[in-house]
C-alpha cells in the first residue's frame, strides 16, 4: 500500500513540475512534508542540500531519498518510477510528433524562434553559475566577495575549453581537484 502511495505521490510531482528543478522543489515539499508527513521540515532541508551537492535531477534525488526512508528499496524504485512515468508517456509522444511534423513550415518557423530562446536560457543559467562560483551568488556581486580561487579556476577552465576543446567532464574533475588543492593550501 505504501509502495502505491509513494508511486502516486511522485507521479504527481513528475506530472506537475514543468521547467525543471526549481519547479519541483515546492511540489516535493508539499507531497512529502505537508500531505504525507514522510519528512520533517529539517529532513526536507537536508534533502535539498544533498540534492544540490549530488548529480541528478532533484525530483529523482527526492524520490530515492524518501522512497528508501519510507519503503526501503522497493519504495525507492516505486517513487523513482512514479516520478519519470509521466515523462515517459508525454515526452515519447512529443518525440513522435516532432519527428513526424518537424518539416512542416509552421513548425519550422516555431522551432527556429525557439532555438535562440533556448540559447538565451542556457546562457542565463551559465552566467548565474559563474556568479555563484566567483562571488557566491549574484546577490553578492562585489569586489569584497570575490572568491579568487573560484574566479581563477573558472577563467582557466573557460580558456582551456575555448582554446583546446577539452573533454568537459575532465575539465570539471580537474576543477574539483584544483578546488581541493587550493583549499588544502589555504588559498580558497
Amino acid at each position, binding site marked *: 500500500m505504501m509502495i502505491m502511495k509513494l508511486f502516486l505521490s511522485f507521479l504527481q510531482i513528475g*506530472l506537475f*513540475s*514543468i*521547467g*525543471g*528543478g*526549481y*519547479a*519541483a522543489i515546492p511540489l516535493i515539499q508539499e507531497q512529502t512534508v505537508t500531505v504525507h508527513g514522510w519528512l520533517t521540515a529539517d529532513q526536507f532541508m537536508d534533502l535539498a*542540500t*544533498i540534492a544540490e*551537492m*549530488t*548529480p*541528478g*535531477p532533484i525530483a*529523482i534525488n527526492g524520490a*530515492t531519498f524518501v522512497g*528508501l526512508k519510507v519503503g526501503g528499496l522497493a519504495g*525507492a524504485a516505486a517513487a523513482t518510477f512514479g516520478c*519519470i512515468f*509521466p*515523462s515517459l508517456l508525454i*515526452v*515519447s509522444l512529443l*518525440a513522435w510528433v*516532432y519527428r513526424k511534423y518537424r518539416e512542416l*513550415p*509552421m513548425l519550422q*518557423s*516555431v522551432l527556429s524562434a*525557439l*532555438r*535562440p*530562446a*533556448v540559447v*538565451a536560457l*542556457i*546562457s542565463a*543559467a*551559465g552566467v*548565474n*553559475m*559563474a556568479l*555563484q562560483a*566567483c562571488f557566491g551568488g549574484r546577490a553578492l556581486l562585489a569586489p569584497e566577495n570575490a572568491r579568487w580561487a*573560484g574566479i581563477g*579556476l573558472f577563467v582557466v577552465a573557460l580558456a582551456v*575549453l575555448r582554446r583546446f576543446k577539452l573533454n*568537459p*567532464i575532465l*575539465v*570539471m*574533475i580537474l576543477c574539483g581537484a*584544483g*578546488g*581541493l588543492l*587550493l*583549499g588544502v593550501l589555504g588559498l*580558497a
Partner: protein
Amino acid sequence: MGMKTQKKTGPEEEQAGEKRTQGDEPKSGGENKPLRLFLTMLYISAFTFGGGFVIVTFMKRKFVDELHWIDEKEMLDMTALAQSAPGPIAVNAAILTGWKVGGPAGMAAAVLGTVIPPVAILSVISVFYQAFAANPYVAMVLRGMQSGVAAVILDVALSLGSKVLQTKQWIHTAVMVLAFIASFFFGVNVVWIILAAAVTGIILGLRSGKEGKQV
C-alpha cells in the same frame, strides 16, 4: 535524408519510422547503439551537478560535437521540448535523444543510464549524509567543480550564441536578447519564455505563409 526515406515507404508505416532512425547515421556500423547510449548517459549523469541545462549542455558536447549522432538544431529543439514538458529535464532530454538515436531500446537505455547514477549515489549518501554535508574536503571539491560547470555551460553558450548572431536574422537575435533579459534579470519562468518564443515563431510563420516565401 531520413524524411525522404520515410516518404518512400509511406508515412503511415510507423515501423518504417523506427528502422529509419537506425539507418539515419552512416557511421553507426555494427556498434550497439543502445549500449553506447546507456554508457554515455551513465557517464554524463554521474558527473553533472546542477540543473537540467547542465546535463543538456554535456549531452550536446557528446552527441552533437563528438559522436555526430544528432545535429545541433535538433539538439536545441529537443532542449526546448525537454524544458516545456513536465518532469525532470534530464530525463526528458534522455527520452528524446534515446528515441532519436535508437528507437524504443535506445529510449529505455538512455533513461536507465540517466536515472541509475543519482539513485545509486543518493542511496549511499542518505545513509551518512550528515558526515558528507559537513566534510570540508567535500566542500572544497564541490566548490572547485562549480567553476568547472560554469565554464562548460558558458563555453557552449558562447558557441551557440555566436551562431545565432551569424545568421543575421534580427528577429532571432532579438528573441535571444529578450529571452536572456527576461530570464536573467527578471527571473521569468522558463515556460513563459518558451511560450513567448513559440508565439513569435507562429506569427513569423503566418506572415511568411501569406507572403508565400520559405521560412
